[in-house]
């Protein structure tokens, strides 16, 4: 999939920025797991913080906080909300 210049993966977003999920790469397993946490294409995510030493990231989605490993975050394609 070619990405427009605005799009990047979730692990490249600065703290406290809001983004919209464009697409989730990876198999049914990951999509389901993220879907259960309320993360689907079209949803808005706020990046809260990065863990130390390339540790997990903490995001807020639909009012709950979710920790995601960097590997998974790099499979979520997002676009920054203006």
């Amino acid at each position, binding site marked *: 999939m070619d990405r427009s210049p605005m799009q990047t993966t979730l692990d490249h977003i600065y703290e406290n920025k809001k983004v919209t999920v464009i697409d989730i790469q990876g198999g*049914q397993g990951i999509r389901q797991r993220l879907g*259960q*946490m*309320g993360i*689907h294409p079209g949803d808005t995510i706020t990046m809260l913080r990065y*863990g130390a030493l390339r540790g997990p990231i903490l995001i807020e989605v639909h009012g709950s906080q*979710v*920790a995601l490993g960097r*590997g998974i975050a790099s499979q979520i394609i997002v676009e920054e909300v203006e």
Partner: protein
Amino acid sequence: MRIALAGQTNCGKSTIFNHIAGYKAITSNLPGTTVKYTETKTQINGYTCNCIDLPGTYSLTSSDPAELEARKHLLSGEVDVIINVVDPSLLCRSLELTLQLLELEVPMILCLNMIDEAQRKGIQIDAQKLSNLLGVPVIPTIATTGKGLKELFIEVLRVREERRIGKTPKFSKDIEEIVSQLDSTLNSEWPVKEKVPSRFLSIKLLENDEFFINETKRDSNAINRIRPLQGKLEQIHGVPSDEVISSERHALAMNLFEQVSIVIHPPKKDIRIAIDQWVMHKFFGYLILAAVFYGFFNFIFGIGGYIEEPLMEVFDQWIGGLEEFFGKGSLALFLSKGVLQGIAGGIAIVLPYLVPFLIGLSILEDIGYLPGVAFLMDVFVHRIGLHGKSIIPFILGYGCSVPAVMTTRILEFPQHRFIVSILTTMIPCAARITIIFGLVAFFISPNAALAIFALNILVVAISGKILSTFYPEASNLGLILEIPVYQFPVLKNTLKKSWYRIREFIIIAWPLLIIGSALLALMEYGKVDLYFNRFLSPLTYLLDLPVSVGTTLIFGLLRKELSMIMLTQALGTTQVLAVMTKTQIMVFTVFVTFYIPCLATIAALWREIGKKGALLAILFTLFIAIILALFTRIFLGIVL
């Protein structure tokens, strides 16, 4: 009548359950505390009901064994009423499960638990409107204080009486068409064993649900009819069919959420957000973590040491008194001394450390600090080939290895469950912690005890690294973990939970200690213990321990506390320092901390990872224990 409590993790199902069952299910502010179901009989207005508390599940498409357990019960067809417990501050996400539960066409009630938390966040929910839209009663509750629970169970009886089944909101037209096409072909030939509504099955099959797809493959060719319909969905929407259905359900849930909820004010500037800033901080987070555990350690030792010393003196006097009373060498003396030492061990050595430890652990759990620990530690756990969620069984392991091994069910991958199960048995449980405190901290120094804990973490990490190299495919999987908001623990519930765990020691372990202690005394009287000691003498010789500790190690396999209580019995004195050197105490404690899990844990391992896994755990821990104890002996021999 069977009532099932179903809902996503950490919404308070077990808290509701405990309210009607007395304290039977462990609760905490930690997603996934319940991993298997608990059942209780209760009376509601004179009706006898069986109420089951299910593990939390995010959806009916399950990916870990804890969720599968919940799903198995819900699909069994034996549930008369479902209480769908929902955290209203996460209503939108929770409704996705609600929609799936409605498809089961079982009488249902929606319980908006922790409604106070939602109000604090500024979310107001129109329960009446939601009830009208879904066709099921919607009851707000606050389970920690019991508010609304009476109404909830009265509604249970009513929906049961009326056999009231909710409405399932419809998907978009094109999807509904495909669902009903599959629905009608299924009705002519039912491809699975389960008696679930046909619409439910159709949706699950279109969703490519692994379990049901495999079922249909067993003895029908239904798959040939399912695949083209899945293909049609994919063609229309341009994404895989499971994503079509899940996005559709998500949209329905969003739509419902928007209709029934109003954000009345932005979330109040909560002190918890400020706390979060520090607790989860890249740098300060780790400092706080270290401080919390150091404080916790000193809290236990402070209380325990303060109580142990005077109590031991009293019991020593009594034991001395027995000698005068019965005369040296008599059977009555051996027996009464054994019993008294068993009692003394429980009161003077175990309880002083166990009680503060379990209360402290309960408080940490109920506040909700542990998921934060998982977040902070993920990067390190990752280094040994696991992910942050594994930290939860590890932390629970400091309480008791049995639930810790069971909690590995929250991990999705069998390789992780296997490795974590084995590692978690090496974490010192409350019983072994009392040994570390009661022997090392008490007789040597608190710092020596800290050193054992540090050594333990190091060894667990290295063992993890070793084990995960045997399962390399497990290493590149990532963390997905919900971090719940902090809760101010309700003191009554925290104390009830602590009592539930302490009671386990008092009614199961303590009698065993007393019996074991008396038995050892009898063995000494009949000089049978010498055989055991001789059998283990190569080990005790290797580790330079007194020969008489051999029997205690065998008793320790039953319950870890026995090793220590027996130690005083085997050595014939509570003044351990008079007969063992500090090095010997360290070597003994290191060995006891790591060697073979207790019987109950072996049974749990057998259940969770099979006979071979349990056997591997036994050999692995025994090997590690011998190596480490030997290392300790040599190292301290040089240093001291």
